[in-house]
């Protein structure tokens, strides 16, 4: 146990070091400002003392005063206060800038990694975890920075006080040497007791939020089955646990606060008591004693700042520890030196002996898959659930690399192509359409140079022109995260338009029209084929209508490309294919 605590302290200090090393200039500025504040706090007491001795008391004794003396006194008080204000503003502002810069830097590094790391890495990590890594964890990692300069200033003040104590009277110094360490011990004990309770409260907060999310998402089910009361009970049970957790936190905090307030007070009293005896013995001077007692009371607040930093360190470490694996992750996609052979026609696709296995999976997803797609042809990839269709679609545009074998574009291994070449030639539309928090135009062009005419043409091909022109701001309507709500079908059509507008030479559709009406889907696929320079299209599909539009079908089963041919040929020759396609169309069409 003690060793672990040591480790936490050491790691905590190293983390503080990281913060300082990250923003040394701001840190120095904030600590300087904090020192100005500290010095002025002492000075303000000194000024009042001097005014009392030199202006106040003589005036009362003499029964007269001068305007100059009073003005000087007032000016001195206000001048010191102004300097102190400068110190406060500097401390807060520089500390704030330091904290926010560290936060922004870390967040940039984390999201930079998200963008750099391969898709296989993403697939291994839950979305929620990655989001909280970049958000709350990054925030937690630097939260302690705000009071850090104040705390450092407090350390300086403590050093000065202890020096003054030693200079005044060694016996008094003992009081200081007892009280200050006591403060640190209290803090350490506090963090020790507090951190598990805080963690539990945080955990319960997350659980309460999870229940609310789930329950609200299930609104229709809850309401139509009349289960509001039992849902409320479920939520209340966890909310009560959270309440108990927070009360447990509060109890510790409620004890710690008054102790931290009482300690400096008791220290002051001890100084006075011992000091009085020492002064009576003539060992020390009463005046010095008063100023030391005063210093003690002044230290009460800055010492709290040290407590804030220490109390926040475990949380900061926990947050940083969760972010570290992201920063340390490796596995950038390597790119080759070659350029793609850009022609106006569709691209030729080659899949040669491709094996694919997800990390840690027992069985491979794809096994020795080999087929070609000639330029300009449309090929449907059909297979039962779990046969590896989506994985294959992703390989064609190099979302991932095969474990074995190669995927070729116009005869060139995708891995030999330069960065950006594949996405210039090929477009991919996934089943769940992802829309950016951007306008319709932005979502279609993705920042590329496309005229509004081109965008509208693409929208027309994707059968999205109708609903887009009905949106309040047309192409400028914001969609996605915080924009207008679109139906699943509408989102898919925008994603299709995004692919079409780029006039790709290879278009890979991974069940990308599943939420679109069959009639609309047929219109979209027709339009794709009707273009003057038709792209090569690889489409993962269930619907017979979709399949029927393909020149050829590749039948995938258990990760292997088992058969290939026209729809009619496969119907005749492959029983599994016939069963699958018929079963679906039965459900779709007949009674």
């Amino acid at each position, binding site marked *: 146990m003690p060793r672990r605590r040591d480790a936490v302290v050491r790691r905590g200090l190293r983390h503080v070091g990281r913060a300082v090393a990250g923003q040394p200039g701001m840190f120095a500025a904030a600590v300087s400002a904090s020192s100005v504040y500290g010095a002025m706090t002492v000075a303000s007491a000194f000024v009042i003392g001097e005014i*009392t001795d030199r202006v*106040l008391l003589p005036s*009362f004794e003499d029964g*007269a005063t001068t305007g100059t003396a009073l003005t000087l006194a007032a000016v001195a*008080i206000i001048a010191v206060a102004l300097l102190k*204000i400068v110190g406060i503003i500097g401390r*807060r*502002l520089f500390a*704030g800038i330091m904290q*926010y810069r560290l936060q922004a830097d870390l967040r940039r590094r984390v999201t930079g990694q*998200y*963008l*750099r790391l391969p898709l296989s890495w993403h697939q291994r990590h839950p979305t929620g975890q990655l989001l909280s890594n*970049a*958000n709350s964890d990054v925030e937690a990692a630097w939260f302690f920075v705000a009071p850090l300069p104040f705390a450092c200033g407090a350390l300086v003040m403590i050093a000065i006080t202890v020096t003054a104590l030693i200079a005044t009277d060694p016996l008094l110094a003992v009081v200081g040497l007892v009280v200050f360490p006591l403060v640190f011990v209290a803090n350490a004990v506090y963090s020790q007791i507090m951190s598990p309770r805080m963690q539990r409260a945080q955990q319960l*907060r997350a659980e309460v939020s999870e229940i*609310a999310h789930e329950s609200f998402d299930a609104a*229709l*089910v809850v*309401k*139509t089955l009349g*289960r*509001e009361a*039992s*849902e409320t009970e479920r939520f209340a049970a966890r909310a009560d646990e959270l309440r108990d957790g*927070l*009360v447990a936190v*509060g109890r510790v905090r*409620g004890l710690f*606060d008054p102790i931290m307030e*009482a300690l400096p*007070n008791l220290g002051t*009293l001890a100084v*006075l*008591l011992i000091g*009085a*005896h020492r002064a*009576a013995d003539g060992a020390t001077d*009463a005046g010095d*004693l008063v100023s030391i007692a005063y210093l003690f*009371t002044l230290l009460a607040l800055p010492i709290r700042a040290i407590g804030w930093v220490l109390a926040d360190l475990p949380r900061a470490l926990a947050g940083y520890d969760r972010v570290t694996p992201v920063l340390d992750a490796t596995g950038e996609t390597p790119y080759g030196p070659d350029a793609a052979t850009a022609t106006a026609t569709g691209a030729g696709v080659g899949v040669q002996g491709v094996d694919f296995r997800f990390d840690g999976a027992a069985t491979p997803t794809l096994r020795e898959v080999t087929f070609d797609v000639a330029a300009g042809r449309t090929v449907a990839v059909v297979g039962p659930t779990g046969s590896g269709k989506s994985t294959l679609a992703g390989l064609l545009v*190099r979302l991932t690399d095969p474990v074995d074998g190669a995927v070729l574009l116009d005869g060139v291994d995708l891995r030999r192509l330069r*960065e950006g070449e*594949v*996405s210039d030639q090929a477009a991919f539309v996934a089943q769940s359409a992802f829309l*950016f928090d951007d306008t319709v135009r932005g979502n279609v062009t993705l*920042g590329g140079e496309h005229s509004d005419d081109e965008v509208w043409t693409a929208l027309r091909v994707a059968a999205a022109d109708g609903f887009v022109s009905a949106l309040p701001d047309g192409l400028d309507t914001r969609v996605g995260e915080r924009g207008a709500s679109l139906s699943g079908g509408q989102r898919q059509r925008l*994603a299709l338009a*995004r692919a079409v507008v780029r006039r790709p030479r290879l278009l890979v559709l991974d069940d990308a029209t599943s939420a679109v*009406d069959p009639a609309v889907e*047929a219109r979209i696929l*027709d339009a794709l084929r009707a273009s003057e320079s038709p792209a090569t299209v690889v489409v993962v599909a*269930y619907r017979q*209508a979709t399949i*029927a539009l393909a020149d050829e079908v590749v039948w995938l089963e258990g990760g292997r490309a088992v058969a290939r041919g026209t729809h009619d040929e496969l119907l005749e020759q492959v029983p599994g294919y016939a*069963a699958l396609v018929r079963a*679906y169309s*039965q*459900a779709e069409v*007949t009674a």
Partner: protein
Amino acid sequence: MTAATLEIAGERREGAVATLRRGLRMMPEFRRGLPATFALALLATAGRVVVPIAVQQVIDRGLNAAGGPDLGLVTGLVVACALVVVLTAVAVYLMNVRLFRTTETALAGLRVRAFRHVHDLSVLHQQGERRGSLVSRVTSDVDQLSVFMQWGGVLGLISVGQLVVATAVMFFYSWQLTLLVLACFVPLVIAIRWFAQRLQVVYGVVRERVGDVLAAVAESVVGAPTVRAYGIRARTAARIDAAIDRHYRASVQAQRTTAAVYVSGEFVAAVANAAVVVVGVLLGLAGDITAGTLVAFLFLVTLFVAPVQTASEVLNEAQNAVAGFRRVLDVLDTEPDVRDPAIATPDRVRELPPGPLGVRFEHVTFRYAPGARAALDDVHLAIAPRTRVAIVGETGSGKTTFAKLVTRLMDPVEGRVLLGSDDAGWVPLADVAFASLRSRVVMVPQDGFLFDASVADNVRYGRPGMTDAEVATAFDELGLGAWVAGLEQGVATPVGQRGESLSAGERQLVAVARAYVADPDLLVLDEATSAVDPATEQRLTRALDLLTTGRTTLTIAHRLSTAERADEVLVVDAGHVVQRGSHAELVDADGVYARLHASWRRSSAGEPEPVG
């Protein structure tokens, strides 16, 4: 009752005090035991004022006594003082614990009440995209309040007490100087409203920027495949950077404003000190106060100033907390547009008549907002008990609205819906107790939402208290016994978050079983549009067939096969029921259905649709 209330009440400008008063009304737990807490707070603040005064006395009378330190007096005073310090600490501790307990209990109550209330609001199922913000009302908004109560609230409470006590003591020493000090703080009190507004604005901007950062970060994670497929890493990175940068600048701006607010108290304190010195000397020369009084008074001013500064510090947190509080209260203040008559109109409440249930629409009109186009326009019809009805129509024709009115997720703007039968009588839906309604009328929504629990738990949701064996039997009865037995752990198989361990089709199977065990007399099915794999599709068709046998069933049909199997088809177009009859009859008639049918057939056969 007008159209559906989709907005959360509020947006009205009300002061912090008004919000607090409204909140206290809604948190009875909070008021309980408050007097004792206040008594402890008073004790604690008294201690906070007494201790520095006592220290001052030790110095003045003991240490600086004429003729050297008076050891006896010093010792006595110090011991008494230490006692006060310890007592104060104990009082603060007791106060803290009481305060934490009552506030947390009150907030938990508030949280749960708000949660329950959200379930009553139609906004939850009408506007799915606003669910996130509703979640935050029962989570982070309440959390913020809780954090504030624990860190800021206590501090604020003590500060106010300290302010009162310090003022009282100051009056005791010199009323003239006290008035002077108070006068110095008047501008600050006036300015504080303005400060508060500024803080609200800058922190509002920060919150908005945080949202932007969240959205931008989500793009790099949720959109990872898209970003890679389209080679837009640089663009995405630039967007994230810009969002982070804007957040950074907003945060620094907020920090600047906070610092300015904080130091204004410091400055006023200095002015007050200077004024006391000058005026105090002049008063002294006039013979109104003594030197000792003035010195003591100067000391008291510092006691007065400290809580003012703390209060201005707390102010900022208070702003955020009050804003969160307001958001929670606004939810509670929003009248649900559909209320359980058992609670709303207990004198009129009725049960559904026994036996099979038919549906009657009497001149029903519905619009989603006042002045909007009617989603359903003067619909007048009756559906006989035990009929299987398919409702077909284009997107936006009003078929979903129809279903929502039958299940009383919404009430008609005009006209009324009745359930019952000619034999057992008809009851207006608006008078039916929810307990009766929900046990007899069940809707199976399109997505068939599943909870993060086992298959059995999800089925049991339709009828609590079933055993796993009973659940398995239910699957057998629906012809799904083999399927469920084939799952890794049978009915005990966990389905994962939102049921994501199962395929979309399998989720629907569980949803069908859930509706089956609820054993309703009237069933409303919203058919899923998305494709599921054929084997599951076949199972689903069979299970639905068994589920609907012998029950009045309204299906919002997206598939031709469903319409073909139905006893009767209702064709909805632009808010009107334009056709009605069996599939066979309607196919031959010239009308909307024949057109829909032709387009269905074409797409299924893979023939291109003619232009138009």
